[in-house]
């Protein structure tokens, strides 16, 4: 009896320490790696290879996986910048969905170009316990492409809200564009700006959906 009890105690202790060890593993880097690895696993899945009918399902699965470790609300908020505070909840929701759609349409095709490159995770920097930057490199064999992921801790999970490649930040690049449209001089100009912004976003999404290539091949507009 005593022996059983002591074994039980040991087992419980082991479980606890394993749990603690697992908690320590909740690092931005580990989280990012598992997220990216998840996408690679789908890309490698033989189930989807060479079957055009499965392409749509594969794209859907990739989107879901990316959504899991990307925080598109935060990404949208920062891309808009301070005018975001003057967006109504409905507008925010609409914006997030349109912008997410735009990013997916644009970058999902690029994901498909993956051909067995490795991603190296070099460093993580955590600031204020809430923000983190993970320095990674895409090892293409010929040269390394440094990619920095910026992440935020939301509800106990690290999620990506910005990607920075070669000094160019995704969020900042879009903020430059959105700032050019959103005139914050007064409420009236802001309303007009918002309308224009949604119009352009919707047009872009429709274009990308209708024909992903034609949107760029025919020059401007």
């Amino acid at each position, binding site marked *: 009896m005593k022996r059983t009890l002591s074994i039980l105690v040991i087992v419980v202790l082991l479980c606890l320490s394993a749990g603690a060890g697992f908690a320590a593993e909740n690092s931005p*880097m*580990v989280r990012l*790696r598992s997220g*990216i*690895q998840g996408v*690679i*696993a*789908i890309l*490698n*899945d*033989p189930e989807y290879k060479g079957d055009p009918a499965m392409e749509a399902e594969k794209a859907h699965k990739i989107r879901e996986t990316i959504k899991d470790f990307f925080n598109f609300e935060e990404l949208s*908020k*920062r891309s808009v*910048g*301070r005018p975001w505070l003057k967006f109504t909840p409905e507008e925010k929701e609409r914006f997030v969905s349109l912008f997410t759609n735009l*990013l997916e349409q*644009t970058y999902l095709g*690029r994901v498909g170009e993956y051909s*067995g490159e*490795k*991603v*190296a*995770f*070099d*460093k993580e920097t955590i*600031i*204020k316990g809430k*923000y983190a*930057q993970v320095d990674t*490199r895409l090892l293409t064999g010929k*040269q*390394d*492409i*440094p990619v*920095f992921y*910026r992440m935020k801790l939301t509800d106990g999970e690290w999620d990506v809200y910005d990607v*920075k*490649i*070669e*000094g*160019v930040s995704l969020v*900042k*690049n*879009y903020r*430059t*564009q*959105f700032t*050019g*449209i959103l005139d914050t001089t007064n409420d009236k100009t802001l309303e007009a700006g918002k309308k224009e*912004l949604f119009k*352009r*976003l919707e047009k*872009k999404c429709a274009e*990308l959906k209708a024909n*992903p290539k034609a*949107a*760029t*091949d025919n*020059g*401007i507009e």
Partner: protein
Amino acid sequence: MTRNYSTTILAFLVLTMILLTFPSQVRSADTQNPVMVAQVGSGVIGAVKNNPEEYPDDEFSEDMWGDSEHHEEAYASDPWQGYNRAMFKFNDYLYFNIMKPITKGYMWAVPLRPRTWTNNFFQNMLYPVRLTSCLLQGKFYTAGAETSKFIANSLFGMGGLGNVVGEAQSTMPLYLGDEDLGQTFGVWGIPNGPYFVLPFFGPSTIRDSVGLGIDTFVLNPFWWFGIPWYYSASAGAYNQINKLSFHIGEYESLKEGSIDPYLALRDAYLSYRAKQVRDAKIDPNKPKPQMTTNPDAAPQK
């Protein structure tokens, strides 16, 4: 008499060719250097400041990353936006209707390998451009690496066609510094000045245009030895076409995802240049990654 006449026609044709085909930038660049857009390459951002007390709890603030300065540098002063937008449209038209078809035809005709040799050759020839900037910035390690690479490639690489020391396995890490005078001015603390879109060459700033002018006409050996200017210029144009053949699709992908391509390109250019100016010292030792992804992973069932 007839002969002189035909020379004039030839010169005129060559000139037209050049004017029509000159794309982004004549400057020292390795294959990974961007053509119109800074999208791929190499470098490190400034050290991340890690002092939480310094920053107010502002949910929009990006100051904590220690690259606000870098962002400020990339902040655009754009007083000539009307002109710039018109020029952007012109370059865009040129790219899609002339540059891209020509380059695609070239890629169809010339396989990857000779194109790489051509690239190496031009790369090697433009050594004086990069060396000057390395020295002016006091980057002596890079200057040494450039020099040893130049000598090795010229002697053993068939006058620069090969790239005998370009691989990572070489005994000494011989990377190219990818330096130019615009960056040098930046390192000296000269600000960008207004954003300025050059016809044919693409996005630039006043500072970078001056640097580019000197790089192209003073430091580029194609303009030495009394070579007639139209030969020098066509060599430059050919280099650009050849280089573009490695980068087809980059400008398209930037444009594809943007709501306002002009502003997207402006930000990309300025951010990339700011990063190039700030990566004062490239660490010759590659960092040891803490972990990597497994490229062969299959999904767990």
